[in-house]
C-alpha cells in the first residue's frame, strides 16, 4: 500500500502527466499516419526519455504505445487506410460508416471502446503479472533458458506468412547480438579490432534503423501515388456514442477485451491478429451479421476494443517474465532497462513503486487519449493531409538525432543507416523484421542463462531435462514450430493474401 501511495505521488506530478500526454499525442499522430506506426514513434521517443525520471519516462513510452494503438482508427475510418496494421480490421466497417455520413459517431465509439478495452486489459494485467511472477520466481537458469526459447520460437513462428523466413530473421537477430564483448568471459567476438564494435551493435540504434529507415525509403520512392490530401475529407468531429448503444454492446466489448488480452499475452502475435479475430467473432455471433462490411457499428467496436486490449496483454509476459512479445514492447523493455528496472519475476520485490507508477500512467494515458481525440480530431485530420515524403524528411532528421544522442557518436548514425537499408531490403522480400529485434533483445538472455546453467551443473546436460518445467517449455517450443510448419503446408494450396500480422 505504501508503495502504491508513493507511486501515485510520482505519477501525479504535472511533469509526469505532461510527459504521458506528450507521448499520447505523438502516438496518436504517428498512429494515424499510414506507414508510420507507433513502433517508429516509440523508437524515436526513446532517446528523449534518457534524462527523465523513471515514471515519467516509462509513462511517455506507454502513452505513445497506447496513443498509437488508438490513433490507427482515425485514418482507417476516415480514409479507409489503416494507420497501423492493428487497425486494418476497423476499415471493414469504419470506412463504410464514413461513406454513410456516420464518421463522427464511428470515431467517438472507437475512442470509447478503445479506452474500455485498454482499462479492462490493465485490470487483467495487474492480476496476472502478480500471479505469473509468483510462479516464475522459482525458475532457475535452465527453466529461464527453456522459457525464453519457447517465447522466441513462438515469435518466429507466428509473426509472418513464412515460418522459414521468420526463423532466418530470428537467427539473424541472435547473430547480430553476439558481436562485441562476450558478457561472461569478456572476450571480443567478431569486432575486427575496432573499438566502436566492442560494445556491440546498440539495440536502440538498431531499432531506429529497423523501423524508421524502411518508411523513409518507401516514402521517397513512391511519392506520387500516396497523397491523401486529394481525398475529400468530411468535416469531422468526434461524437460520443449514447449510453444505450454502449450498454447494448457491453457483452461484445467484454468478449473482445478478453480476446485482445489473451492474444496480446502470446508473444509474436499482436494487434492485427487480435482485431481480426475479434471482428470475425463479432460477425459470427451478431444478430445483424448481414450488415457487416456495410457500416455496422459492431464492426468498429469489436476490433477497436480488441486492439487496445492487446496493450495490457503484451505487458503481462514483459513485466512478469521479461519477454517482450512485439517490437513495441521490446522498446518499452529497453526504456525500462535504461532506468535500471529489469522486468522479470523479481520486479515487484525491487521496483514495486515504479511498477505501480506505470499502472497509474496507463490510466492517465487513457484519459489523455479520450481528451485528445475529442478535442484534437481536427488536428489529426490536418496531419493526414501533410504529404508523406515531407514527414519522411522530418523522420530522417529525428532518426539521426535519436541515434546520435544515445552515445554522442556518429558511428551510431552510420550503423543505423546500414541496418536500416538492410531492413528495407528484408521487408521488400517479405522477411518479417520483428524476430530480428526480439532476437537481439532475447539473445543475450538466452546465451547467458544457458551458460550459467551449465556452470551450475558443472557441465552436466541433465540440468535441462531433469526439470519438468524446462521440459514442458522445450516441448511447447517444438510443438509451436511443428504446428506452424504443418499449417503452412496446408495453407499453401489456398490463397495467400493474408494481412501481415505485425505492427512493425
Amino acid at each position, binding site marked *: 500500500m505504501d508503495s502504491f501511495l508513493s507511486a501515485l505521488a510520482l505519477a501525479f506530478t504535472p511533469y509526469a502527466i505532461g510527459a504521458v500526454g506528450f507521448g499520447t499525442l505523438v502516438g496518436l499522430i504517428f498512429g494515424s499516419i499510414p506507414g508510420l506506426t507507433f513502433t517508429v514513434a516509440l523508437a524515436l521517443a526513446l532517446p528523449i526519455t534518457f534524462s527523465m525520471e523513471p515514471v515519467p519516462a516509462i509513462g511517455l513510452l506507454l502513452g505513445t504505445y497506447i496513443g498509437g494503438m488508438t490513433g490507427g482508427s482515425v485514418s482507417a475510418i476516415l480514409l479507409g487506410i489503416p494507420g497501423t496494421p492493428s487497425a486494418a480490421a476497423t476499415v471493414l466497417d469504419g470506412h463504410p460508416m464514413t461513406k454513410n455520413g456516420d464518421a463522427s459517431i464511428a470515431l467517438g465509439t472507437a475512442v470509447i471502446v478503445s479506452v474500455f478495452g485498454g482499462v479492462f486489459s490493465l485490470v487483467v494485467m495487474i492480476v496476472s503479472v502478480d500471479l505469473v511472477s509468483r510462479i516464475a520466481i522459482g525458475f532457475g537458469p535452465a527453466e529461464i533458458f527453456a522459457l525464453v526459447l519457447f517465447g522466441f520460437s513462438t515469435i518466429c513462428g507466428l509473426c509472418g506468412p513464412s515460418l522459414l523466413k521468420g526463423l*532466418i530473421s530470428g537467427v539473424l537477430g*541472435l547473430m547480430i547480438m553476439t558481436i562485441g564483448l562476450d558478457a561472461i568471459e569478456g572476450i571480443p567476438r567478431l569486432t575486427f579490432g575496432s573499438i566502436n564494435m566492442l560494445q556491440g551493435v546498440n539495440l536502440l540504434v538498431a531499432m531506429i534503423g529497423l523501423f524508421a529507415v524502411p518508411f523513409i525509403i518507401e516514402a521517397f520512392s513512391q511519392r506520387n501515388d500516396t497523397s491523401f490530401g486529394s481525398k475529400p475529407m468530411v468535416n469531422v468531429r468526434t461524437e460520443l456514442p449514447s449510453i444505450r448503444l454502449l450498454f447494448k454492446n457491453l457483452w461484445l466489448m467484454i468478449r473482445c477485451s478478453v480476446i485482445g488480452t489473451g492474444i496480446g499475452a502470446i508473444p509474436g502475435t499482436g494487434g492485427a491478429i487480435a482485431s481480426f479475430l475479434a471482428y470475425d467473432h463479432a460477425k459470427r455471433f451478431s444478430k445483424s451479421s448481414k450488415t457487416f462490411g456495410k457500416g455496422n457499428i459492431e464492426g468498429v467496436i469489436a476490433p477497436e476494443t480488441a486492439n487496445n486490449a492487446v496493450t495490457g496483454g503484451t505487458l503481462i509476459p514483459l513485466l512478469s517474465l521479461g519477454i517482450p512479445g512485439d517490437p513495441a514492447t521490446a522498446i518499452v523493455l529497453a526504456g525500462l532497462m535504461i532506468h535500471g528496472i529489469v522486468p522479470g519475476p523479481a520486479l515487484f520485490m525491487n521496483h514495486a513503486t515504479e511498477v505501480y507508477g506505470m499502472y497509474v500512467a496507463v490510466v492517465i494515458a487513457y484519459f489523455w487519449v479520450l481528451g485528445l481525440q475529442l478535442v484534437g480530431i481536427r488536428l489529426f485530420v490536418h496531419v493526414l493531409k501533410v504529404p508523406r515524403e515531407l514527414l519522411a524528411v*522530418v523522420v530522417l532528421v529525428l532518426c539521426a538525432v535519436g541515434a546520435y544522442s544515445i552515445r554522442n557518436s556518429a558511428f551510431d548514425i552510420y550503423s543505423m543507416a546500414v541496418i536500416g537499408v538492410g531492413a528495407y531490403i528484408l521487408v521488400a*522480400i517479405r522477411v518479417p523484421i520483428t524476430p530480428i529485434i526480439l532476437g537481439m533483445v532475447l539473445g543475450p538472455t538466452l546465451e547467458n542463462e544457458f551458460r550459467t546453467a551449465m556452470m551450475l551443473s558443472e557441465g552436466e546436460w541433465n540440468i535441462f531435462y531433469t526439470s519438468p518445467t524446462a521440459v514442458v517449455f522445450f516441448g511447447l517450443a517444438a510443438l509451436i514450430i511443428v504446428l506452424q510448419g504443418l499449417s503452412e503446408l496446408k495453407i499453401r494450396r489456398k490463397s495467400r493474401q493474408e494481412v501481415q500480422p505485425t505492427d512493425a
Partner: protein
Amino acid sequence: MTTQRQNTIFGLILLIIACAWTWLVIDTIPPGFGDGDIGPRAFPLIFGVSLGVLSILLLVQAYLRGRTGAAGGQAGAGQEVASTIHWVAAGALLVEISLYGVLLEKCGFVIATLLIIVVVMRFNLNVRSIKKIALMSVGTTLICWAVFEKILGIYLANGTWINLG
C-alpha cells in the same frame, strides 16, 4: 523476377554470410575448455550453422516450388511476381545518412541539418521551388533545435570545424 527467384538469390546470399560467419567464428574466437564448459564460441557457432541450414532449406523450398510452378504452367505460389526493391532510393539514403553523420561531426547540428534537408528535397524529392526548400529546411532545423536542445536538453552534435547554436 519471381518470388521464387528472389528467394533463391536471398538464400544464396545468406548461405555465403553463414559460411563466412562460421569461418570467422572458428578462426577468431577461442573455444571453451571442453568437458561441458560452454565457451564464448559456442553460441555464435551454433547461430552460424543454423543460418546455413535454414538458408539451404530456403533454397530447397524455392527450387521445389519453382519446379511445381513450372510443371503446372500456371502462376503458382512461387511464381508470383516479386516485390520491387527501390535500390536507387535505398542506396541514396545510405549515402545521405552517412553524409549527415560526417556533417554533424564537422559542422554541428544546425548547418548539417540545413544542408541535408536541402539535398534530400532537391535530389530525392525533386522539389524545384526554392521557397519550399528553404521553408522546409529552415523550419525543421529551427523546430528540432528548439525542442531538443532548448526544451528537452538533449545534446545535439557540435561541429569540430564550425558550430552554430
